[in-house]
């Protein structure tokens, strides 16, 4: 993905996009095939097609190291397909393919970052050709240095216009030279012969074999293509036709009485073989794509990557579109809620503005939906990690994916990929026990990691759970205490609170730092990533049974439903999704503890009170509890009440980030412009509750 400000040449852009997509598809298919120890016909065709495409595109873009590697892998699968090989070392094969994918991904990444794609693919190419040799041996193919020329199949062309009466036929001799680099000169020569058939009654040419032999290409490049033919057509017309040859570099054409010796010899040797119309039974039929309607997982993978009637749009255009829609929502509010209109009777106007409102809502919905992408791509990436790690750690692990069609804003998807990877790695590394331990604990020997995505209200939940050993509450508390991260005694903290200690920076209970995790810099980065998109993490676990990490992320960052509240003359917006209820408190319901912290009792539960006018230092006359309103809000772990002057109403607001010249204010998530032109600050509920 291009960084902001970097505009790449469109062709490169498309190349990178397609290459990335194809590598992801290939990776999926490979892992699936390896798992099933089977390569379906459809899979082979798909793998071949992907390699073929990468080869061509990379060559066009002059990324030859990639092209050469793709070519060698293409050869590998071409062999498997054509020979219908059954003796395949799946592990070796797909290890190689995955290494190839990694190489290509690496090069693509370099190119994306404006570096040179200078990786050397030779080692992998060598590995690939060695594997091909091994496969050929294992499948009974005798390796010969040159292909056998099947003389009897060599075709010679005799026109059907042989006996055309007594008109005078003229013999011609033509020598054709092709432009350098036009490739497949033997086929081009074949084309000439094919086209001359229409007017020539006999034809002899050197090189003779322009069908089977590849050597003829060299001969033609060196000596030109020599044809002797006889025709009624005039010299001008013949010359005209021959001059139309594409890639013609040089043409020598002359009328002759007799063919030269070498062609005469040919004439004598000839076996007359009339050209057959290539029928359906031709050998080439094997290559035609008879669609294997094999409903395997492979088909699904292919379908998900290869959708018709879809266009790819530059993400920056969508960002602009969303911005614009946001501005329209604000403008619409500024028109319909304009102070100028106060007090007026506006029946028709109101009707019209309701219609406008309806349309802007629809527009907003559509634009949002354009930006939504299913999480499936991101989820499927995890397959590779599970495969690689489970191999390295010698654990048998199964990855179950649920709800992959759930959609999330494109902006957000990019931010959850890394956190997800980290969580999956953690489960694999620390959560899941190895086979012996699991069997000893009466668990199935194969560990299970579940990735689930689901919609709930205005949020999307991404849940990573495993059936491993779970989190040790006591150990975590001890470590947290040691690091000075907790002050309260263990008994006073809930499971959730203790487990969320692992999200704090510098925390790690691992005695050993492994290659994959344990340095204590992982979970807090995960939290940061999730926080940055307005999401939240919560952790649940049962000792010996497993752990579940739930990530809640907003459906969209840009437009939220909010509750407008007044504090003094200022207006604030509280995100509706954080609100449980609101009510007018009674004086006696509010109690203060020994430290002066205020609390309110609701239905037997005590909730902390956060007075916004105090937090934000606002002058207001509404200070006594029974004169204002309490809004009960919650974030991931806490529930509390916010004390405000009054409620204004529900409002859809466009979230604008705080300008960069204002330092991050704790408790404020952003700002917005209301219909009356006033600015409203959006409350960051977590920020307030964390005080």
């Amino acid at each position: 993905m291009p960084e902001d400000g970097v505009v790449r040449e469109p062709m490169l852009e498309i190349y990178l996009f397609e290459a990335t997509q194809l590598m992801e598809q290939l990776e999926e298919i490979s892992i699936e095939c390896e798992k099933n120890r089977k390569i379906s016909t459809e899979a082979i065709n798909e793998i071949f097609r992907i390699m073929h495409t990468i080869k061509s595109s990379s060559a066009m873009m002059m990324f030859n190291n990639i092209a050469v590697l793709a070519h060698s892998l293409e050869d590998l699968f071409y062999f498997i397909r054509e020979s219908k090989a059954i003796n395949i070392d799946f592990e070796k094969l797909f290890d190689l393919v995955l290494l190839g994918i990694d190489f290509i991904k690496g090069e693509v990444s370099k190119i994306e970052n404006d570096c040179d794609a200078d990786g050397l693919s030779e080692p992998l190419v060598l590995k690939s050709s060695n594997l091909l040799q091994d496969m050929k041996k294992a499948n009974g193919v005798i390796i010969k240095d040159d292909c056998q020329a099947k003389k009897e199949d060599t075709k010679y062309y005799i026109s059907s216009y042989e006996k055309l009466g007594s008109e005078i036929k003229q013999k011609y001799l033509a020598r054709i030279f092709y432009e350098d680099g036009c490739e497949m000169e033997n086929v081009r020569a074949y084309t000439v012969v094919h086209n001359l058939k229409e007017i020539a009654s006999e034809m002899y040419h050197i090189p003779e074999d322009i069908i089977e032999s590849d050597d003829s290409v060299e001969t033609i490049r060196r000596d030109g293509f020599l044809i002797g033919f006889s025709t009624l057509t005039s010299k001008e017309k013949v010359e005209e036709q021959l001059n139309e040859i594409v890639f013609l570099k040089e043409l020598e054409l002359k009328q002759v009485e007799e063919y030269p010796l070498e062609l005469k010899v040919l004439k004598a040797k000839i076996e007359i073989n009339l050209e057959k119309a290539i029928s359906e039974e031709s050998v080439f039929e094997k290559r035609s794509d008879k669609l294997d309607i094999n409903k395997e997982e492979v088909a699904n993978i292919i379908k998900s990557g290869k959708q018709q009637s879809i266009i790819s749009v530059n993400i920056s255009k969508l960002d602009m579109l969303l911005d614009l829609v946001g501005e329209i929502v604000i403008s619409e509010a500024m028109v319909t809620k304009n102070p100028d209109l106060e007090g007026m009777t506006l029946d028709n106007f109101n009707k019209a503005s309701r219609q406008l409102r309806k349309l802007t809502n629809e527009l907003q919905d559509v634009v949002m939906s354009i930006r939504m992408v299913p999480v499936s791509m991101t989820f499927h990436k995890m397959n590779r990690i599970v495969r690689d790690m489970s191999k390295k750690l010698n654990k048998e692990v199964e990855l179950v994916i649920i709800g992959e069609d759930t959609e999330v804003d494109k902006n957000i998807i990019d931010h959850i990929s890394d956190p997800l990877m980290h969580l999956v790695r953690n489960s694999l590394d620390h959560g899941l026990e190895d086979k012996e331990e699991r069997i000893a604990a009466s668990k199935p020997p194969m560990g299970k990691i579940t990735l689930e995505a689901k919609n709930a209200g205005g949020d999307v939940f991404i849940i990573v759970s495993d059936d491993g050993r779970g989190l040790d509450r006591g150990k975590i508390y001890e470590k947290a205490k040691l690091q000075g991260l907790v002050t309260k005694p263990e008994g006073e903290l809930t499971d959730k609170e203790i487990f969320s200690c692992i999200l704090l920076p510098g925390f790690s209970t691992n005695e050993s730092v492994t290659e994959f995790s344990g340095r204590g810099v992982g979970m807090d980065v995960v939290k940061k990533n999730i926080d940055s998109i307005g999401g939240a993490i919560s952790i649940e676990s049962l000792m010996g049974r497993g752990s579940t990490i739930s990530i809640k992320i907003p459906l969209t960052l840009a437009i939220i439903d909010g509750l407008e509240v007044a504090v003094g003359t200022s207006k604030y917006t509280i995100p509706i999704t954080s609100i449980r209820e609101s009510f007018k408190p009674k004086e006696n319901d509010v109690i203060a503890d020994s430290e002066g912290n205020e609390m309110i009792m609701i239905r037997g539960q005590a909730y902390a009170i956060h007075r916004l006018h105090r937090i934000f230092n606002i002058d207001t006359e509404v200070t006594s509890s029974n004169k204002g309103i309490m809004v009960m809000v919650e974030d991931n772990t806490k529930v509390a009440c916010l004390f405000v002057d009054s409620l204004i109403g529900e409002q859809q607001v466009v979230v604008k980030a705080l300008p960069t010249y204002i330092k991050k204010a704790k408790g404020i998530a952003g700002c917005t412009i209301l219909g009356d032109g006033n600015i409203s600050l959006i409350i960051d509920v977590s920020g307030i509750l964390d005080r």
Partner: protein
Amino acid sequence: MEGLFLKKVLITDDAAFMRFSLKTMLERNGFEIVGEAENGAIAAEKYKILKPDIVTLDITMPVMDGLQALKQIKAIDKSAKVIMISAMGQEGIVREAIISGATGFIVKPFKEETILKVFEKL
């Protein structure tokens, strides 16, 4: 050159990148790309609707490959001008394509000058 109108081309290839490259090269040189197809079946359909002057067909494509598509298009219109886009190693298919009426062929990877040499003569 016939007339003042740009020659209309239909480009067929399953790789978006290849379609884009070819389109860019041709448009730069005075051809009008009236349509794109991702496989041979779509190409044949679009041929009927768009009636382009020239069609390019990649050989390796899913659903329906270039050779099949060529035959279909030739069945629709005997005089269709079709250029096959082939890769090294596909000599046999190209030959069959010539027999089935392909006007010419280009081998990948190709440069702009190469494309033009072929298209100029159409």
